[in-house]
């Protein structure tokens, strides 16, 4: 009898965990929400927040270890080169837990940034509070923010473009199109997209 009870409790707990796991995925920002500011350490040692003097930012949840991120690194550098002077710098945030994914440690981030000559801020969200607030679910995952008054408003959420394999095969530059709309005061035509990506390596709760 006791075994049955334990089995039932275990089934219930696991079931609730799965249900809440699914619900948790739907949290985070939607288009039009005000994005929270943060203060995260960059690979150069400085502390990075949403830029006060900019027009917005491209916040990209990123990492060292995901092949999709690696495929997009050069394009992230190009986006920063092209749009930082126009007021929309790239801020890449790695939220992966280094205990779960050792290749994503802060030291490895420094190495990656140096070898790829990242021009953008590459910051560490060790507590994972920022990614949870934004609702980032995979890498790479872009949040395009546009400043309205003192607020950073979420204007686009999703992929960089529609071909991770081949930059020359891209037919839809989602982020650039969204930026073009925002900079010209238009409503963003495609506000959200999805792409295959790597899971976030969440910190495991102490048993």
């Amino acid at each position, binding site marked *: 009898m006791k075994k049955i009870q334990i089995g039932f409790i*275990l089934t219930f707990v696991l079931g609730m965990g*799965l249900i809440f796991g699914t619900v948790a995925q739907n949290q985070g920002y939607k288009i039009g929400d005000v994005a929270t500011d943060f203060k995260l350490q960059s690979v150069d040692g400085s502390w990075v927040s949403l830029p006060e003097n900019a027009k917005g930012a491209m916040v990209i949840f990123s990492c060292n270890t995901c092949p999709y991120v690696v495929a997009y690194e050069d394009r992230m550098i190009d986006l920063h080169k092209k749009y930082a002077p126009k007021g929309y710098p790239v801020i890449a945030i790695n939220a992966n837990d280094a205990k779960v994914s050792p290749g994503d440690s802060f030291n490895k981030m420094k190495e990656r940034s140096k070898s790829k000559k990242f021009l953008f801020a590459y910051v560490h969200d060790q507590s994972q509070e920022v990614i949870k607030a934004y609702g980032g679910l995979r890498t790479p995952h872009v949040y395009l923010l546009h400043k309205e008054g003192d607020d950073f408003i979420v204007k686009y959420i999703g992929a960089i473009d529609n071909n991770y394999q081949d930059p020359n095969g891209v037919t839809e530059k989602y982020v650039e199109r969204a930026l073009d709309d925002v900079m010209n005061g238009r409503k963003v035509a495609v506000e959200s997209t*999805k*792409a295959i*990506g*790597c*899971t976030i390596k969440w910190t495991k709760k102490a048993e």
Partner: protein
Amino acid sequence: MKVLVYSFLLIFINPNSNGELNQSMTDSTFQIISYPEFEEMINTPSEKIRIYNFWATWCGPCVKEMPYFEKTQEEDNSIELNFISMDDGRKPERVTSFMKKKGIQAPVYLLNDVDYNKWIDKVDPSWSGAIPATLFIRSDGTKSFHEGEMTEDELKLIINQLK
């Protein structure tokens, strides 16, 4: 869309506890498919609970959970398992050599369409696109979707809930 079919025989030679050679053969299928072909596959009725596990050879959590799926399929003949690879369609040998190395029994289909935004919502609107992810289809056609890595217990729990 040109479909490449790779079918190969895998021969495993493992010494058993007596130090003798134990030879077994498995016949596993590998196929590169388009999204419409995947859609046709999932829309074909079956009396079994069909499982489509989205994975890639380079994805650690995916590779970790694959044996749970294979074991569950072995123990439970009411399910039909298919692995849907998100690997690079230009390099299918990465998948076939992985299958050989790991002795994968279930059919593997490489879904070769990188225009992801066009089809992720069609698989399931709740899917963010992160892998691993798994689509379950009951014999009556109703679907259930799980994003993220699963333990063996979680997988069995979901299957039992679908029965």
